[in-house]
């Protein structure tokens, strides 16, 4: 998957957990999941689980720690997809 393809799918993963649909449509790599998209911290595990299912990957604790903004989410997901092969 290209970075753009991962991003397109990531938007679908995040969508149920943010009410800021306008910002979601125009997210950039710097968009922060909590501060910008106003995602409640209680939903962060949901996003990790949904991303694991969507990309058929496993995201360990240390990798999940890095998923703070859209760019770092793409980094982690891209790396896990490559590991999966």
């Amino acid at each position: 998957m290209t970075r753009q393809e991962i991003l397109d799918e990531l938007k679908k993963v995040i969508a149920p957990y943010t009410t800021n649909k306008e910002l979601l449509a125009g997210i950039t790599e710097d968009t922060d999941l909590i501060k910008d998209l106003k995602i409640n911290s209680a939903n962060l595990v949901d996003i990790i689980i949904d991303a694991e299912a969507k990309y058929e990957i496993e995201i360990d604790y240390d990798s999940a720690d890095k998923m703070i903004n859209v760019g770092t989410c793409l980094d982690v997901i891209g790396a896990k997809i490559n590991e999966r092969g």
Partner: protein
Amino acid sequence: MISAGNDIVSLTAINVTRTKSPEFYQKIISPAEKALFDTLDQEALPFDRFVWLLWSVKESAYKYLQRLDHGIVFTPVKFEVRSIAIPPAYSYTESGAGEISGRGFGNFSTFKAEVVFAGRKLFSRVIIYHEFVSSVVNHSDDFEGVYWGIKRIKDTSYKYQSFAVREFALAKLKEISGLNNLAIHKNDEDVPVLLNDSELFAAPISLSHHEQWIAFSCQSLANMADN
């Protein structure tokens, strides 16, 4: 240094089936904490509520410690809950009027949990009703210097939640302190701080909201009330 940390989770907003699935709860609780659950009275604390109690205590502890060390990252399994005390003859009730508050928890039936992160132990008090689980942490097991409040709101938009929790906290703190020029701002580290006449006030405050619930806790108000 004294800090503040609280959290609230709306139990009507969480997915109970997903909470009970290992792929989900293993992101929040460690094998040692699962073993702790196996020793508890599971009628008094069903597994889904146990998971969210732990989440809430860990989130509160993270907020408490992150104010002191901005570099801390919130990895739930790395915040270790080592003990839980279930209040005797506990039965889950509705929240009633939808607003409760207090100084300490002497008048409330609370769960007590101890949580450790990086060798630092914190204590907590947790209130669980049918609709929510809400926790407050402290550096000691004495919560008499802690003011807190929980309130139900109707508008669940982020903007209103953020406004309402500040309005609620300030109304309570002004009433307690008699200080009418209190305000809540976020500092450069994105942490809420209490101001009096635009000057930083030495009473750490923590805010939380989830769906239809808002909550706050504030430390050192005994000093504040003496002013």
